[in-house]
């Protein structure tokens, strides 16, 4: 009987692939954001709102991750931006290999690549896809305790968006507590309060994105 030291992460191949994806995205000078939220939180509406505000100034690509179908990508392409659909079929998240399927379909340079992950607060958190950062979203009807229940995602996300804030008068959602809960997992999180319905908060998100876009350009140009 022999004991062999391995000391390798189980997700070593995913991490390697994510690194290669990141290098490919860097060559395109694209800022890549991995958008993670539960089903119905408003990921697609967030993307649509960002597109409306930034599409005349930046080249945007959306990568849609869904278990099945292409409802979201059809909706997005109507807004006049390019979309690549990835169907995960049985998987509850995008991993680096699935994200890599998009690479040969990218035929030109984009400033901003928005990746809509499968609706799920658990699994997508563990799988890097080669993104610059994760954006976690929660919507007020889901409850202000979500960051405590799904700590890993909120810990890893650079940006947290609280959506459907127009519903606050009708809900028991305590936004102060929600933000406190996010900060307990992630003291440095950049938090936005928005409503995709009314457009509130989108100016702030887009200002943040423009700052990130400039920073990425500087990094990859140098």
């Amino acid at each position, binding site marked *: *009987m*022999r*004991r*062999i*030291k*391995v*000391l*390798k*992460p*189980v*997700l*070593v*191949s*995913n991490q390697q692939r994510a690194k290669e994806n990141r290098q490919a995205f860097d060559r395109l000078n694209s800022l890549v954001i991995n958008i993670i939220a539960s089903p119905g939180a408003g990921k697609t509406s967030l993307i649509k709102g960002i597109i409306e505000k930034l599409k005349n100034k930046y080249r945007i690509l959306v990568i849609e991750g869904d278990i099945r179908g292409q409802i979201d990508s059809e909706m997005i392409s109507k807004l006049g931006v390019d979309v690549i659909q990835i169907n995960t079929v049985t*998987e*509850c*998240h995008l*991993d680096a290999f699935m994200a890599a399927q998009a690479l040969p379909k990218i035929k030109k340079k984009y400033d901003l690549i928005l990746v809509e992950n499968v609706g*799920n607060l*658990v*699994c997508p*958190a*563990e*799988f890097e896809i080669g993104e610059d950062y994760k954006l976690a979203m929660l919507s007020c009807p889901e409850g202000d305790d979500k960051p405590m229940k799904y*700590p*890993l995602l909120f*810990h890893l996300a650079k940006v947290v968006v609280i959506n459907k804030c127009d519903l606050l008068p009708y809900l028991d959602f305590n936004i102060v507590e929600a933000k406190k809960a996010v*900060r*307990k*997992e*992630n*003291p440095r999180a950049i938090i936005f309060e928005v409503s995709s319905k009314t457009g509130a908060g989108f100016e702030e998100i887009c200002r943040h994105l423009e700052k990130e876009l400039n920073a990425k350009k500087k990094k990859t140009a140098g």
Partner: protein
Amino acid sequence: MHEYGVTKSLVELCNKEADKNDIKKVVKVYLKVGKFTGFSPDSIQFYFEHLKVDTKCSTAEIVFEEIPIKIKCNGCSKQHVIDEPILLCPNCGSDEIELLSGREFYVASIEGE
């Protein structure tokens, strides 16, 4: 939920390491799982029983070692082992926290013949 794919990677990694080290039969897989990961040892165990069939791991068992969440406060320099991943110093309340352990998920070693 996502442990199926993860356990598949685990079996592949162990088989590859066995091949590399000329091991014909893996008997034990020593797996370290941090408490601040989204991986459940029970689910990994469940899928492992199915995925190891007809591989070098077919009779192997997993020995799990849970790694606690350990933080260091840069405010008061104290270290703490915490049960829940709340990244605020239990001593002084500072949010200048460094995560020392808890995110691990790796194969430490394999045993075989």
